[in-house]
């Protein structure tokens, strides 16, 4: 059984790996741990940015920011702040040794040409087949804004989504078919939520691990058929 690309580390066996839902930082730590050493990664604005706090130097991860840089370092503070050195969220950042700068077409060629190993994005909805909706609520009075979301979704080798599983109203964001406007089709390979990690693909949704719920309890929250992912070696 194989639904995953080369950038996952392993399929962990025990289906319930925490006795309570994961907080945002625990989830960011989990995503960080799952990124294969040596990867080139783009972290989307918002919750995905937290992942950078948990990357270990030994992992040798290179961060890309679509406004023209590889080798982005942590957020700048105090004297480090330089208006010419910002990330895609327009936050001042720092430069690591081995960084490089390039213009926007070259930067998006990195994304669109399939050179990033992983991008981590937030989402409004993800479908059972990996469709992503994360740029527009579709509300008639909303000002639409897409930025680089569609390029990341279609360009990266693996697209990881980080989101809460349920809306504030308790509705699953993992859905049979997205009702929000799409960002990309069939692009999401993995969904990290507070309640479970899902592997998505053409063959449907597998659950790698759950947090604070059983697979049966999870299935009750989610309107798409779930099955347990095989553990490594099984």
């Amino acid at each position: 059984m194989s639904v995953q690309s080369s950038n996952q580390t392993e399929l962990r066996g025990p289906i319930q790996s925490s006795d309570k839902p994961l907080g945002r930082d625990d989830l960011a730590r989990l995503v960080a741990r799952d990124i294969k050493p040596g990867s080139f990664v783009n972290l989307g604005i918002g919750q995905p940015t937290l992942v950078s706090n948990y990357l270990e130097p030994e992992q040798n991860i290179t961060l890309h920011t679509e406004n023209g840089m590889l080798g982005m370092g942590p957020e700048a503070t105090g004297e480090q702040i330089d208006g010419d050195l910002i990330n895609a969220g327009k936050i001042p950042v720092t430069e690591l040794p081995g960084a490089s700068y390039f213009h926007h077409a070259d930067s998006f060629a990195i994304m669109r040409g399939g050179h990033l190993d992983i991008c981590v994005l937030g989402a409004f909805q993800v479908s059972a087949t990996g469709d992503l909706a994360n740029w527009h609520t579709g509300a008639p009075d909303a000002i639409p804004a897409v930025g680089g979301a569609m390029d990341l979704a279609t360009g990266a080798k693996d697209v990881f989504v980080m989101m809460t599983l349920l809306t504030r109203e308790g509705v699953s964001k993992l859905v049979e078919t997205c009702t929000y406007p799409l960002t990309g089709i069939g692009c999401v390979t993995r969904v990290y939520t507070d309640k479970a990690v899902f592997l998505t693909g053409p063959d449907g949704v597998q659950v790698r691990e759950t947090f604070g719920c059983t697979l049966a309890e999870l299935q009750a929250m989610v309107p798409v058929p779930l099955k347990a992912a095989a553990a490594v070696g099984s």
Partner: protein
Amino acid sequence: MLNFVESVGEAVAGIKDGSTVMIGGFGNAGQPFELIDALMDCGATDLTVVNNNAGQGDQGLALLIKEGRVKKMICSFPRQSDSWHFDTRFRAGEIELELVPQGNLAERIRAAGAGIGGFFTPTGYGTMLAEGKETRILDGRGQVFETPIHADVALIKALKADGKGNLVYRKTARNFGPIMAAAAKHTVVQVSEIVPTGCLDPEIIVTPGIYVNSIVKVA
């Protein structure tokens, strides 16, 4: 022909009503504030503006929009916490918006400068931003046909220019500058420093002077 001009007013003096104007920058980095202020002062109106965003706060592009000088924005991310002038005009139906995924924006600008008549890209396939556009399957993927974005004028910011108009930039302020310089009929650059020809290493020049028409030093 390359000209070194004394003031930002002189640099933008040729911009006509109805022009398409590319403005460099991503957020504030690389944004040519002084040239935008000069564009404000020169009175040109009915503009189509190409920029990643649609203005922030009460300065630069946001002011041009506030004053009704922009009839159309071509951008990827008009919605920001402080993009109130765009928001107001857009909700009132007083400004046209062509929303473009950021990579398509960059590639379409690059295509204009490189003489490409159009290209297919997977970005946006199957989304509302591809509605009405030609699509086909290439390399096993659904792709959307996108066309070049040309401009009459580009206003950009660089770090240094030499006497031949060669440019270097600084950090992530490089962003759209090099591709806009190539895509516009007339490229105006504000720089922090003008150095004698021969003082920039030929290996590190990002924008060759062939793409540059007017240079003005801004303090």
